[in-house]
């Protein structure tokens, strides 16, 4: 559909020969792919395919895990992330939404205001108020929490907490938004609302959507990569993959529901 425009878009993330191992046990790789600016890039595959490891390598969360070994190159805006000296600044460019909602034990307001405060970009109280409201609105949560911004974020319902997590990820105005199976703990109605939010956000940021719901990738992603047992089997336009035009038979089988 929009192939011609998409392929002309700028490359945001360039992954070259990326391999990830945990203490000698290979988890992923080698992976070579490009993620373009302002697209939703889907990553599908069954459990243990290296999808989460892939995300962790992008925002350098491997630094937190002593036994996680990452080799190869990931370039964001043509700068090698391995050479970033200040990983905290790198992570501020990247919003992350985890599989299970993590409402930090702070108030709803403080949850969203945390990132700007950490970065020292909170500005005046009025500016921060406005930012918090804008992020909560965009995460489709504002109407439900506007009267209880002072309540503990960790006491919201699962679906609300997940939208709170999205609002929090948006609060740092990320250039890249990574979602890791965000709908696992969320009801279908909330899932659809979040999906609508993502479609709107696409114009402003690059979105990496890791999901084990094949149809979710079909609904949202412009292009999709299929990971299987640590191997990147195939990358293609979502439409083609789901029309049975996948080059690899395993992709067809997985999308067709024959396994996984």
């Amino acid at each position, binding site marked *: 559909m929009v192939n011609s425009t998409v392929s002309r878009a700028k490359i945001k993330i360039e992954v070259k020969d990326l391999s990830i191992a945990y203490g000698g046990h290979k988890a992923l790789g080698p992976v070579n792919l490009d993620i373009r600016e302002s697209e939703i890039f889907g990553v599908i595959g069954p459990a243990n395919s290296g999808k989460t490891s892939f995300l962790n390598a992008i*925002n350098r*969360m491997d630094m*937190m895990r*002593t036994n996680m070994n990452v080799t190869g190159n990931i370039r964001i805006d043509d700068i090698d992330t391995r050479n970033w000296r200040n990983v*905290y*600044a*790198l*992570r*501020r460019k*990247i*919003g*992350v939404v*985890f599989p*299970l909602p*993590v409402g*930090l*034990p*702070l108030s709803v307001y403080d949850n969203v205001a*945390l*990132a700007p*405060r*950490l*970065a020292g970009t909170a500005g005046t109280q009025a500016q921060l108020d406005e930012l918090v409201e804008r992020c909560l609105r965009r995460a489709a949560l504002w109407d439900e929490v506007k009267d209880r911004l002072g309540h*503990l974020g960790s006491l919201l319902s699962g679906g609300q907490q997940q939208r709170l*997590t999205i609002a*929090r*990820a948006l609060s*740092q105005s990320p250039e890249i938004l990574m979602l890791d199976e965000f709908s696992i703990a969320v009801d279908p109605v909330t899932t659809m609302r979040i999906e609508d939010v993502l479609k709107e956000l696409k114009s402003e940021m690059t979105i990496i959507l890791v999901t084990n719901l094949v149809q979710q990738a079909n609904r949202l992603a412009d292009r999709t990569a299929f990971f299987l047992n640590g191997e990147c089997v195939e990358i293609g336009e979502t439409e083609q993959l789901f029309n049975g035009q996948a080059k690899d038979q395993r992709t067809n089988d997985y999308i067709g529901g024959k396994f996984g």
Partner: protein
Amino acid sequence: MTAHSAIQPTHVTVGDAKDKNWYIDKSFEILMFICGISAIIFVVGIFLFVFKEGLGFILGDMNFSEFFLSQKWRPTSLNKATYGILAMVAGTAAVTGLAMLICLPISIGAAIFIAEFAKGRTREILKIVIEFLAAIPSVVWGFIALSIMNPLIINVFDVPMGLGVLNSAIILALMAAPIVTSIAEDAFKAVPDTYREAAEALGATRWQTIYKVILPAAKNGLLSAGLLGVGRGFGETMAILMASGHSINIPTSVFDSFRALTATIAAELGETAVGSPHYQSLFAIGIFLFLITFIINMTADFIVRGVRKG
């Protein structure tokens, strides 16, 4: 329905008989119940005993305003015996406060290092050493107070005597540090890793993660660690007896000698006639200490519950 009820009775009597397992289960239940309430029995028993011994004094010779507001502790005076514990309360409170000022930052810092930064062998060695610190008998701490800290304080601060508030507070801080550290470390360990990952994914540095997310999340545990330290300070006897100088005096500087409530009981109880006003007055101090620890524990409990509900 009718067909069922015709069959049911025999089935029920067979399956419903109290068999061997039922009796074993029941006896275990009773046994566990006894173990469970034994703590209550002991606490009530000790309280009754202490109270019974002190009661004669409280109802008889004791003058409440003198007991709490006078600093004259002269139970053996032949003319007029006075029983004022103000100086001892002030001394105990001052030392506990100063000890906590020294102990809490170090212990919480140590707990943060062990829980958040130290890895592998460093971590294990640290934990073992800290546990070893907890195993040192309190009388050995008294040795250290007398033979190391005393001359050290005299030399460093150029004061005539090194036994007193500062010496006791340092010793007490070292004695409380292992337990406070290990409770605080438990509190940090109880904070889910997902909080750390979420904070770091937002670009928080290690310090920001600890300061903004982990400390607030662990505050209940840290509070109970602190109160445990305070309880330790009020209750510690032997080391304080040796480190305090044991003279009745409201301390006005950290180098002043003082006398602790507990040390008074320990030093004097053996020399009193059972049932005498002096003997009973020591038990009244015991009741007072008992009430203070009780209040500290209840406060901690209420705060923790309150935070949980909020």
